[in-house]
């Protein structure tokens, strides 16, 4: 299992850009929004949590098709499926690897990019906490979407169509928790709901994704 994690991370690092590309995309989204809505600091500060969340979500989406597609094409997935590691474990490890190279860097970078959006005070820590608890669900749900579309020639666009609606609950609760927290309200309810979605996704989606992979391999 650890060998698989290390391999996936090593591949992501060496693939040239797989690692940094998501972050760069995130930065570009955050840079473009003020051009669209104007430089007014108050407006930017108000929409900052939403923009950062949507940006993180889109950046996460970029690299999803790499989770299984390359292994499917070069035959590794066949070999992994016949290896001693259960397919559910393979899915979970690959989602974890995806989170470590995209979700985690996005979480760490969000407070800095937040400065561009005039985030202030407790906003930085709220962005960090909500993304830390929410992005694992994005990777896991994404792995499920990638498993569904792995057999398709150009599954990328279709996968976005399948995955983005599944991101809605996490996005709503995540952005809501950050907004409430920054405004000094009690943010426990959305925070717990989002953490619950993350926990539930990690516990159950590997099974759904593994069954989808089995269908696609046969």
């Amino acid at each position, binding site marked *: 299992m650890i*060998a*698989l994690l290390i*391999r996936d991370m090593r591949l992501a690092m060496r693939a040239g850009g797989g690692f940094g590309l998501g972050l760069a995309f995130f930065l570009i989204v955050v840079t473009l929004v003020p051009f669209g809505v104007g430089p007014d600091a108050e407006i930017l500060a108000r929409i900052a949590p939403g923009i950062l969340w949507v940006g993180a979500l889109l950046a996460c989406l970029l690299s999803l098709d790499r989770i299984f597609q390359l292994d499917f094409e070069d035959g590794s997935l*066949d*070999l992994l499926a*016949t*290896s*001693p590691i259960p397919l559910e474990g393979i899915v979970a490890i690959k989602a974890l690897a995806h989170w470590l190279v995209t979700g985690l860097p996005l979480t760490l970078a969000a407070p800095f990019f937040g400065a561009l959006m005039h985030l202030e005070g407790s906003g930085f820590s709220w962005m960090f906490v909500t993304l830390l608890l929410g992005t694992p669900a994005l990777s896991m749900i994404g792995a499920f979407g990638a498993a569904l579309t792995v057999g398709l020639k150009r599954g990328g666009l279709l996968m976005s169509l399948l995955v983005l609606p599944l991101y809605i609950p996490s996005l709503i609760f995540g952005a809501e928790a950050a907004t409430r927290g920054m405004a000094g309200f009690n943010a426990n309810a959305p925070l717990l709901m989002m953490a619950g979605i993350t926990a539930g996704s990690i516990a159950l989606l590997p099974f759904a994704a593994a069954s989808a992979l089995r269908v696609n391999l046969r």
Partner: protein
Amino acid sequence: MDFSASLTAETLTVTRGGVPILQNVSFTLSPGQVLILRGPNGSGKTTLLRTLAGLQPPLAGRVVSDPETVTYGAHADGLKATLSVEENLQFWASVHGQTDITPAVEGFNLTGLVHRPSANLSAGQKRRLGLARLLVTGRPIWLLDEPTVSLDVPSVALFADAVRAHVAKGGSALIATHIDLGLEADSFDIGPYKADPANAADSNDGFDTDGVEGAYL
């Protein structure tokens, strides 16, 4: 690892693209045996091997084997271009709970290439690396699909030696190939098992007809 595992197919029917392609396939692969799978292109050798490896469910019949004893070698080698020869092998070894990759490296004459990224290997070298993977899985039953594609004569000999050594330890191999490997092997021709389309379509009732179009006829 117990090296005395066997694999038996019992009246197996396998499908490709929803249509039965082979039916009533029965044979046993015993420890120490090499079985050469013969049949023209498109006759269902790959489908049969994938079914035996547990990658796709049979339509009827069953495969009696412990999935943990079987390893499958496909057309694709499952190599990562950015990883070195050593890293590729080491990965598959650790996945299968093995540590020592030296016999595999030496057996397939890869010693001088261990640090080279597999992107820079020739087609034949890649194939040798793909075959070396079989050794690091530590599994007794090899199911191989055209293992000698793009190998030169000395490399084919290396492969034959590896199979001989494997069999001597009690392992076994089912090999789909069109060339003579110079091995002492039994031959298994799948020609007689070609599915009869009209017959296969009538033989089910619409229940649990995974992958069968016959339910609609």
